[in-house]
């Protein structure tokens, strides 16, 4: 599946680092951007590129939860079930969306459109309950809004992230971003959400 262009991109990723083994993580993200998960072919290729055993690449790949052993859906949806989000509604969101789609943790809908994951704290607690889709922020979610998100995704028309690009990229597209590659969308979306700006607003009111 990997062509000459892929090899050139992988070389450019390796060149970012003083020692090439450091490139293993972005290379794994890059493999996911092509295959939708970490394939054996991808592991072999990385091991050749970095001149390490494929078992060492597998050892790294299996340590980190974002590297998937099975194909993600085109839209990979994570519901935060860490304490604060769970208490404020994350547990209810998870139950409702999981039942709605008829799939559980790390499972994919039959049409391959949506996969679900129970995720840990995603550093957006002032927007709880938080849902991520392809690692874009969906803030202040409810069970209904999450069902609308996955229904939109299955119809090929998901709502835009709250703080992110104007249109939700696919899992593979965003895996390129996580490999450190530019997709030209950095200027889209807000500078900061409402909660991020609350202290600044109050300071301007003299508090």
């Amino acid at each position, binding site marked *: 599946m990997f062509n000459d262009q892929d090899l050139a991109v992988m070389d450019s990723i390796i060149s970012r680092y003083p020692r090439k083994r450091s490139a293993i993580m972005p290379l794994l993200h890059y493999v996911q951007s092509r295959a939708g998960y970490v394939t054996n072919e991808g592991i072999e290729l990385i091991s050749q590129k970095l001149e390490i055993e494929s078992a060492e690449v597998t050892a790294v790949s299996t340590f*980190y939860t974002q590297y998937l052993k099975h194909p993600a859906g085109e839209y990979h949806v994570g519901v935060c079930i860490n304490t604060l989000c769970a208490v404020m509604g994350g547990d209810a969101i998870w139950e409702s969306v999981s039942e709605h789609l008829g799939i559980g943790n790390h499972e994919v809908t039959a049409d391959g459109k949506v996969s679900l994951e129970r995720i840990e704290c995603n550093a957006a607690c002032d927007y709880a309950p938080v849902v991520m889709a392809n690692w874009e922020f969906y803030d202040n979610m409810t069970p209904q809004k999450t069902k609308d998100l996955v229904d939109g995704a299955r119809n090929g028309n998901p709502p835009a992230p709250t703080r992110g690009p104007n249109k939700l990229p696919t899992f593979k597209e965003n895996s390129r971003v996580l490999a450190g590659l530019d997709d030209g969308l950095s200027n889209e979306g807000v500078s900061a959400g409402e909660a991020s700006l609350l202290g600044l607003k109050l300071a301007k009111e003299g508090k």
Partner: protein
Amino acid sequence: MLKPVLSANWDEKDSFTIDGYKRHGGYEAAKKALAMDADAVIQLVKDSGLRGRGGAGFPTGMKWGFIPQNDGKEHYLVVNADESEPGTCKDMPLLMANPHVLIEGMIIASYAIRAKHAFVYLRGEVAHVARRVNAAIADAYKAGFLGKNIFGTGVDLELTLHIGAGAYICGEETALLDSLEGFRGQPRLRPPFPAIAGLYARPTVVNNVESIASVPAIVANGADWYQQFGTEKSKGMTLYSLSGHVTNPGQFEAPLGITLRQLLDMSGGIRAGHKLKFWTPGGSSTPMFTDEHLDVPLDYEGVGAAGSMLGTKALQIFDETTCVVRAVLRWVEFYKHESCGKCTPCREGTWWLVQSMKDMETGKATEADLDKLLDLCDNIMGRSFCALADGAVSPVASSIKYFRDEYIAHITNKGCPFDPVASTLFAGELA
């Protein structure tokens, strides 16, 4: 009472662009620093009193001063942007709204410690933050602020964005370094400390995003200016993150030493009709507080004296509808999930904590089990490779200290007496 510096321009539409940053004097501090002697820059940061904003509170300038000079080795700066401590949500909005302040801080810090290559280790679950940081780095290169001969001073600096892949443990600085070297992210035995043998076994400074982002304002305005904010040993301003059962959650940049009562008073308080039950001062790894602690000064010493840690200043607020046993069970499940497996007290201990807490929450436990749980905590605390397992113990031990009766109620009721729907934000919708 508030003092926005890092967050001062976040409400501008182009705050994350190089033009938006330069409009407010951006990169002038870096030019000023690079015209100074490198040791003088370290001294300035020491004099400011800046302490690490990632949790430990170690003096930043002193950390820089530990790097051996004229040793003929490469030096590295690594910024810890792996923000993952439950409740912590300050560095991600900072990097989304103003990535250039971090880059400018990194230019200054790298110059001070004589590093020619610096890294940002960003958590992997935040695509849009990655985009913003990546674009900011590219723009800084184009402007001649990174790369060869920056600002025409003869100083070189390469800056690489490294994006993680979902592992809380990589926020621990030595696990972060292993991860950045291309290995599983597991902590290293210390000594040697990173200042002597860090990335690629070379002298390395690892600093939190907010610590490094605080440096440009210190260079621009001077150590005396910074010293006037905060308390005796906790200088400057910092980002407090308010979340949970409050009327208005959000980010508040204030001088160190502000209290939760002050923050709640100005922002609208606990959500209507409810009252404060428990809260964390600095993420889930810091022992919890209750309504007795509303007036504790939120600085390193004040929180420490009250029996907890300032941590990341992640103020997670829970009201009386929340079952503390359920909350703590979920946290220990997190630590079990994130334990890297390298050392036995953590790998096995967090597993047992989950078993024991599950029995508590579902009412299967006895009072003797409560003592066993505390005994388990004693056998984990201070016995593991890194601070992850200590963090797992904190919510358990502190919740038993303040809410023993609630644990007993689970035992006598043979189950959880709380309705989880009541603590959601959409109780009406679910009913």
